[in-house]
Structures are given as C-alpha cells and as structure tokens.
C-alpha cells in the first residue's frame, strides 16, 4: 500500500501534483562558495568552506540528508594513512596507487586523500559518527587496536583501511551543515555553469538550476564553485524493469556536462569497465568473498572449501593469513581504492583458477559463503559490522535478510549460479559481465594542487575529479576543495551574470514542457542513448564506430531529444538528464577518439590501434571545448610534480593545503 496503480482504482480523481507549479519563475541567489551536489564530497566541501567564515550554498538534486552515492552508509574508510596505527605513509600509498594505475591517475587527488582521509574521519567522529569499538564488542580481535579501539580491514599488519559504523554518516553531516548555517537547496538540479561574459573558457561565476518538484528556475551567483557531482551512471545501460542502477540513480553526469559546456578540461574519460547491467544481483546479498565480505570462506555444494592463495600462489591454510601481506609484500592496498590490482598491491584471494576447477568438477555449484567457519569476531565483523553499515546494505541486506530468518552463525548464503568463468573474481554478486555493457571508469576534471580546474573559480571534489571514486577520498578531497574555494572566494571580485547566457539556458530547460504529449519520454530516450553507447563506444572502439556514434548522438539530440516530453517537474528533471547523458557520451567518444592506442589500464580496446599502452601514448590527454570545438592536449602522468609545482608530493601539499 499504496502504489499508484492501486490508488487510482479507487474511484478517486487522479491526484493533482502535490507541489506548487512555478515553471519559468526565477529565484536569484548569491553566495561566496557554491557547492554543486550534496553527496559526501559536497557536504565536506560545504562544511570546510563555511568554517573559514564564508557564505556557502549547496544545491542538491535529491535530498541532502541521505542522498549521494555514499548517502546510504559506509563500512570501509580507505587510505587512512595518517591514523595513529598506520604503517604506511601517504607518500608510499600514493606512489603505489599511481604505479598500479599505470600513471593514469590524479596525483594531487590521491595524495590529498591519503593525507586527509583520517582527518575527514575525525571530523565525522566529532559530528557523532562511531568509528571505534567503544562497546568492546571486538576486544581481542586480530583487526582491533586495543589502545585506540580502531578496527582495520584487509591488511591487519599495515592498518590503512578502517572499519567504521558509517550507516548514519549522511544525517550527521547534514546536521552539522544546518548547525553551521549553510544554505541547502534540495530538489534543485543544476543545469549550467555561468561564466564571465557568458563565454566558454572564462571564470565560473555561478550556476543555474531547476527545481524538480516545482519547476522553478534558479540563478545563483558565486565567487567560487565546487563541482561535487559524483560518478555518473545510466550512460551505457538503463532499464528500470529489472533492477535499479549501481550508481546513485540521480547521477548521470550533470556535473560533467555543465563543466564541459563551460570549457573545463577532462582526463581519463575514455576509460570504462564491463558490468552485468540490469542483470546484476543485490549488492552484497549473495554469497561472495570480496570487499565487505573479504575473507569469508567459500564452500561448494558438498561443503568443500575453496582454498585461498597469496599473490605468489602460496596456499593460505588458516583464516588469519588471509589478512596478512605475502612474505616480502610491503602492504596490501585493499579493495575499493579504484586502483587496478597488480602484483605489488594485491590482496589475497580465492584460487585464481577456480573457473577451471569448477569445469573439472573439483567444486560443485552452487557455491556458498560459509561465515560459520570464521571465528566469531570475523563473522560478526563481516555481517554485523560491515554489512550492517555499508552503503545500501544496512536495510537492503542486513535488515531484509535477518527478518527473513538468515542467521550467519548457522546458514550458508548461496552465491549466484553462473558460468564457471564468472567465478574468476570473488565479487560474485556483480554477476556475469557483458563486455559492451559498461560502467564509468573514473574520468573527470583535471585539477591542480588546489583541486582547481583549468577555469578560474571552479574547484572539484570526489567523483568529479578524474581517477577518483571512494567514500573516504570524496570526504578528504571535499574537505580540501572547500577550503581552497573559500580562500579564493574571499579574494575574488564579483562579476555580473550575462543575461543572454541565462535566457539561452532557460529556453533549453523548459523545452520538454512545450512538446506534444505523444512525443518521446525520458525512459525510452535514456535507453536509446545507451544503445548507441553500447554499440559504438562499448568494449571495442575504432575511428569509424566512434565517428558513427558521434553522428548518431548528434542526430538523436536534434530529432528525438528535441521532441522530448515532460508532464511534471519530476519528468522535466529526468528529461534534462537525457541532454546530460548525450553530452557525457560525446565526451567519452571524443576522448576515445583522441587516444589512438589501446590501454590495459584504461580498459580501452581500439580495434584500429590494438597495441596496449605503447610508450608514446603513456600520457594523459586532457580534452575540452573551446569556442565549440574539441581541443585535445597532452599532459605527462607526473604533471603535478613538474614546474610550476614542487618535485615531491609532500612539498606541494605543504605549499597548497592552506592549513
């Protein structure tokens, strides 16, 4: 009770839209720092900017109290190199991450994350987040430090990833924002960046937005803007029929599209990964031994346990060994860092030849996660602490499964039944990967040591920066970008908004309200764009297919998209998201065209340039719009350590961090 179809079969009139309709009405706002996106990075940016005394305004498409990819919780806090128990320095962690990424990663973001991840967590603790085992539930556990009561994951020796009780992190951040007097505009979708003189490539002086409940239009002037819009989804796959999206449903790359149109520079947009799209399983609700479930024993249908191995193929016969680096291995980086697994950093795992062993009949499907084989502390840590606090697991998995009677002390949780090759990664719930169904690989804005883009006044945090993606990294970079944007806002001169730019945007925003009702709707259009992305910008790409894809996207923009119909402010927001998805698709295709080489690190397969990572292409290819034309540049992997910057991470951080 009460779904709409049920409601309308009750002899009642179709209900009026419950919110006042204010299409076309303008609200003008002015602030020092404007934060676009009220997710993890946006909240930390807002709080840290506000603490320096400036006026801060946050615009969020959903509801800041819980929204964003990290809004439903967090269990792992990664890259906490400066926590009192850590054996790894930020420099060492950054070096390994950069090396394992083949260089295709953002040095400033990585180092800032390693430096301030722990500080950001302490901020959260001050707001009321539980980050320690204060109840002594895990006293004596291998992963607990008895002095600080901190608990660690993956590598119990080196202690850089913390286990935290993060299910309520978002309401706590929200409460702090309210306490500090930050202006929060929920249900406002940002539609464009305003620029000096209304021109591409000039200083960013604010943004426009539309309210997805009322249709009201917002013109927001700001001395500095922080792009905190997260990682896009719904670019390659979209089907609401089977399941929701892996990424926050609201996030389709509005931040990318508006920054692109303003002339901001992007890198790594050509990277992506295969996924199982709508046919995936409930995240973490299936037997697996990965990430939140790392270390869990996997048994087959007859109870035979799948052995564990370290990176050198040494069998790990005991449970404690799974949480220790291999002999000679400096440290295991852990999972969720968005760093490709390589020999240096890899975690221990199930038998790498498990698919072959299943084919030969050594292990009989279905497989099960057998938590009962673990000591109580480990079992409780995985199911009670981690599943109980990770994003999208406290209610969707812990609550739902325990209410249905699942008991981790007694029950075996079944893994999906799939083709043997799908068991190569212990992340079983992600299902059978379909190579041309792709998911965002971590493209985003190029930033300097201020986490500032190439445009004055535009800063970035979290998933808006290339190479990012984790909760703690979003928090740390938000913290940093908030400070830097506030410092800039204090010194920057105020500029006048170009009315022509506002009028052009307003006209675009309301077009879907002016169409015939029988024209195309947002869901069908979204799926249509995805088909172009799958076919023309999928696993394999080439000059011809990418150019054909760009032509199709352009045609789609001019035909079906121009006939897009929206019946409500809600549908208007979704319709405008289709504009966004086309733009994001175009950026990805342009970036893929620019790289005339394949890359193992970028998961990029160019049919016409099959050689992977040839030396001459081992560089970043920053891409931007200038006067409406695509410009591709070149940036060495270590651009952040070359002139005008200092030669080491530490020096640059000390020079720029503003602390």
């Amino acid at each position: 009770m009460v779904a709409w179809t049920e409601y309308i079969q009750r002899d009642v009139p179709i209900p009026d839209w419950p919110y006042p309709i204010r299409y076309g009405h303008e609200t003008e706002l002015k602030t020092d720092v404007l934060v676009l996106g009220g997710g993890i990075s946006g909240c930390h940016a807002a709080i840290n900017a506000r603490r320096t005394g400036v006026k801060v305004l946050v615009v969020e498409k959903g509801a800041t109290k819980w929204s964003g990819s990290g809004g439903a919780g967090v269990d792992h806090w990664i890259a906490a190199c400066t926590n009192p128990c850590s054996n790894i320095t930020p420099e060492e962690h950054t070096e390994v991450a950069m090396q394992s990424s083949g260089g295709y990663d953002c040095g400033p973001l990585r180092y800032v994350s390693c430096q301030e991840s722990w500080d950001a967590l302490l901020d959260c603790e001050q707001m009321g987040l539980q980050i320690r085992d204060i109840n002594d539930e895990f006293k004596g556990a291998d992963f607990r430090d008895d002095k600080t009561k901190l608990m660690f994951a993956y590598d119990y020796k080196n202690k850089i990833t913390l286990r935290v009780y993060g299910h309520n992190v978002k309401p706590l951040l929200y409460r702090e924002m309210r306490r500090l007097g930050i202006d929060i505009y929920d249900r406002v979708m940002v539609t464009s960046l305003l620029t000096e003189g209304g021109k591409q490539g000039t200083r960013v002086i604010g943004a426009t937005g539309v309210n997805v409940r009322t249709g009201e239009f917002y013109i927001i002037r700001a001395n500095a803007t922080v792009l905190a819009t997260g990682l896009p989804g719904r670019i390659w796959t979209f089907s609401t029929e089977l399941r929701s999206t892996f990424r926050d449903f609201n996030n389709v790359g509005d931040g990318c599209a508006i920054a692109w149109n303003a002339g901001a520079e992007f890198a790594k947009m050509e990277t992506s990964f295969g996924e199982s799209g709508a046919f995936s399983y409930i995240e973490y609700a299936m037997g697996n031994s990965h990430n939140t479930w790392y270390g869990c024993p996997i048994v087959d249908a007859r109870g035979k346990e799948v052995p564990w191995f370290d990176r050198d193929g040494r069998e790990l016969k005991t449970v404690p060994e799974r949480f220790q680096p291999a002999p000679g291995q400096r440290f295991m980086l852990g999972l969720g860092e968005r760093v490709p697994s390589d020999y240096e950093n890899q975690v221990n795992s199930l038998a790498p030849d498990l698919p072959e062993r299943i084919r030969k009949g050594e292990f009989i499907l279905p497989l099960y996660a057998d938590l009962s084989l673990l000591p109580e502390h480990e079992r409780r840590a995985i199911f009670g602490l981690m599943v109980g606090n990770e994003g999208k697991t406290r209610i969707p998995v812990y609550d739902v499964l325990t209410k249905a009677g699942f008991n981790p002390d007694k029950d075996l949780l079944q893994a999906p039944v799939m083709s043997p090759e799908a068991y190569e990664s212990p992340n079983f719930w992600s299902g059978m990967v379909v190579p041309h169904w792709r998911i965002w690989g971590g493209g985003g804005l190029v930033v300097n040591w201020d986490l500032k883009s190439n445009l004055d006044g535009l800063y970035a945090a979290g998933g808006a920066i290339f190479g990012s993606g984790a909760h703690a990294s979003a928090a740390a970079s938000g913290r940093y970008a908030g400070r830097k944007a506030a410092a800039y806002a204090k010194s920057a001169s105020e500029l006048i908004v170009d009315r022509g730019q506002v009028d052009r945007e307003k006209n675009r925003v309301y077009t879907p309200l002016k169409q015939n009702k029988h024209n195309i709707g947002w869901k069908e259009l979204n799926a249509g764009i995805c088909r172009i992305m799958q076919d023309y910008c999928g696993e394999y790409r080439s000059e011809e297919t990418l150019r054909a894809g760009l032509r199709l996207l352009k045609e789609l923009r001019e035909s079906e998209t121009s006939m897009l119909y929206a019946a409500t402010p809600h549908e208007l927001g979704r319709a405008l998201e289709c504009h966004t998805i086309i733009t994001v698709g175009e950026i990805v295709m342009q970036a893929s065209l620019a790289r005339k080489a394949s890359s193992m690190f970028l998961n990029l397969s160019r049919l016409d340039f099959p050689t992977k990572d040839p030396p001459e292409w081992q560089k970043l290819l920053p891409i931007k719009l200038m006067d409406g034309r695509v410009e591709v540049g070149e940036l060495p992997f270590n651009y952040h350590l070359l002139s005008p910057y200092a030669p080491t991470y530490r020096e640059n951080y000390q020079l720029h961090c503003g602390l």
Partner: protein
Amino acid sequence: MDRKVYMVPNPSTPNNSIEFDPKICNGCNQCVEICRTDVLMPNPEKGKTPIVLYPDECWRCGCCVQECNRPGAITMIHPLNQSVVVNWKRKQTGENFRLGMLNPPPPNIRPPSG
C-alpha cells in the same frame, strides 16, 4: 471477481519498492521528504500513507526505512528477479530458504553491530 474494472496501464516494473503498514504509518511524510529520487508522493488524504508513484526509480538504498521513526511502518521490497535467488541453506539440517518464501523461518533478531 465482481469488483469494478478500470482501464489502466500495466503496473510499472518492479511493481513496488516499499510497502507501508497503514496501522503503523501516521502519514508524517518524512520519507517523502528524504527520498533521493522522489519515488514517494504525499497522500492527498492527510495522515494516510504516502503513494509510491515511481517504484521504477527506487534505488533500493533503504534510507526511508532508516529515516522512519516508526519501526515497521516501511518495508523494503527487492525486485523479484533479484530476490528470488537470495537463497541460504541451514548447515546442520540442509534446509533451503529464500527471500519471499511462503513459510519463512523465524526472524533473526540480532541487531547490527554498534
């Protein structure tokens, strides 16, 4: 069988994403306020449970359940094509269970850690 028949479209898929218990829910609409995708709409009749208008846009984050201060008022529902394969087996007895089964075992009442 003898109820009035209307001309209505097929139900959206998945059919529902959350279920309200009208005996517990007091229609405060706090879940409506915090739902990231605006799946829920306030009921035109004050004090009644919200209307699930866009179950197809539910992200299944469970934040509405976390936000609700009336335990049991909201139950999250996973899409059937995902929930039907959430299976578990009792190690000692070999009994098979699944989400949504007809006669489920008694709930495990142990709360999450913390």
